[in-house]
């Protein structure tokens, strides 16, 4: 019988610190996930946690992990050459095939940028796949900014709006929540525009509402949920909302579905 909880060993090839508490771990792997899928990542005797895949090639995958608990604290102690244990990928990602030749807007808050970063890089490599890309990213403060180098690269090709909730004395960029910038966003044809929103629950809720106000149809909005998960295969029950299992039917949902996920 196949053991569905058995992880496989994956070597850490490099570690890229993003902030004091967010590191990107690059693991040797030939997993080719859908954008937005996630893995269960574990260290034996410490524990297991669901982590979204922040990028991948056919040689490696990247996990951007914030140090916020027992498992992630231990992961942050690891060095290149050490191993993580992974199972997955799990869940449904963003249906990028349906986004072809559309205007795409990606709004990400904080670590919410991780699960959508691979989509942005996909478009960065193949800009012709879509009409244009608008990126809105928000972080709490300048020191919380993730993927700074990549954001710079994106700016060369796409409209990128970077904002922080609270600046510091050296900050000269935008301040304020993402929602503040949506009313002035250039949206030419709402019906032909796909919006992806990922971030903390409150950010997603109000960002979606702002886009609805701009006339984006509900069915064009996509979100990704974060929930506690112990199994990721529809057994443990932690991520269930009504009859929906976030690990199975999500974590990516169309807004027409996500708005019904009352909790």
């Amino acid at each position, binding site marked *: 019988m196949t053991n569905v909880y058995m992880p496989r060993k994956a070597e850490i090839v490099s570690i890229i610190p993003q902030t004091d508490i967010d590191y990107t771990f690059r693991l040797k792997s030939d997993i080719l996930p859908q954008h937005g899928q996630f893995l269960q990542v574990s260290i034996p005797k410490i524990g297991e946690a669901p982590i979204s895949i922040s990028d991948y090639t056919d040689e490696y995958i990247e996990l951007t992990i*914030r140090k916020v608990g027992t498992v992630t604290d231990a992961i942050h102690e690891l060095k290149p050459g050490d191993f993580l244990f992974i199972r997955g990928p799990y869940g449904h990602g963003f249906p990028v095939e349906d986004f072809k030749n559309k205007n795409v807007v990606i709004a990400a808050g904080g670590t919410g940028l991780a699960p959508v970063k691979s989509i942005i890089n996909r478009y960065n490599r193949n800009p012709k796949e879509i009409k244009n890309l608008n990126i809105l990213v928000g972080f709490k403060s300048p020191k919380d900014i993730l993927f700074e180098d990549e954001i710079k690269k994106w700016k060369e090709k796409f409209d990128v709006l970077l904002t922080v909730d609270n600046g510091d004395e050296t900050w000269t960029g935008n301040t304020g929540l993402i929602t503040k910038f949506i009313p002035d966003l250039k949206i030419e044809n709402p019906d032909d525009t796909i919006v992806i929103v990922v971030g903390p629950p409150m950010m997603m809720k109000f960002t979606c509402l702002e886009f609805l106000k701009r006339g984006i149809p509900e069915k064009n909005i996509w979100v990704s949920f974060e929930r*506690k998960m112990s199994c990721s295969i529809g057994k443990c029950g*932690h991520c269930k909302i009504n009859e929906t299992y976030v690990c*199975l039917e999500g974590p990516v949902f169309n807004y027409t579905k996500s708005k019904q996920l009352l909790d």
Partner: protein
Amino acid sequence: MGIELDVKSFDNALKILSKKYKIFAPVRLKGKGSFSDTDLVTYGEISSYKDIELSEKSRYSPKEVIYPITQTLFYFTEDEYKEPEIDDKGIIVFLRPCDANSYLKLDNIFLKNGPYEDNYYKRLRDKVKFFVIECTKGFSTCFCVSTGSNKFLDYDVFFRFDNDKITCDVKNDEFSYAFSGKEVEFTPEFIEKNEIEVKLPDIDKISQNLEYVFNHELWDEYTKRCIACGRCTVSCPTCSCFSMQDIFYKDNPKCGERRRVWASCMVDGFTDVAGGHSYRQKYGERMRFKVMHKIYDYKKRFGTTMCVGCGRCDDVCPEYISFIKIVSKVTDAVDRGESK
């Protein structure tokens, strides 16, 4: 046709079967109850007729036979993951129809939900033989007729225990060798009417009025009354949620285990995500989540009501909260809400 047995021949059958099977039944553990000088009726291994407790409903269900409270998934030595062995014996469970039906409810989660079968569940579940205990009267908090779980026909052997007179119907021929006695006419009976009847809500009506039901004031009472102890979910034969837990051995920290342990949607921490956010902080919201799972969303997903009407949640609640009463309130609210 049935076979009539006396205690001696029944015990002899158990003795024969015990060579190939572990045999579980409700048992009375003297002095093990929550309160001083009270007993605990629960599931345990038995070897004779006198071990079986039939006069009282078991506080805990037989689910732990196939889904243990704590189950080791892996043993770790350094970085090696090793799956624990299980013994070769089969499993016989003496249970009432409601509890037999609860195994089918667990099957939906562990074997049918999502793309994979849960291998740890399956390897125990595949061993199970149902020795169903005839139950025609039930107990004061039973409502299995209302939930449609009063009958279970897919038994291996069916038993009527009438004091010391035992009649059985051996449906599975593989057990014929163990039971010998006088052949008698025997038709298994099932309870047709409980003392308590509950009208379950129409799930389509809930779907159409989801926000109304979710935000209904009826849940507020449980924010005040419920203490989030999780007893209802522990005693429930169909609750199946678990959390992963890694440990290392204190005397050798290089070795350890990954386990799964029962979890409860009623208890703090169930929805905690990294960084401190959690959902359903109010106890009334947790009550709504649990009740709706039992009577609404599980049915929407699997086509059958999750609750089997055993009434254990009502028996064990330290705050005397009645699930039956909540279900009635929901049905009532749904019916009234719809007519508005």
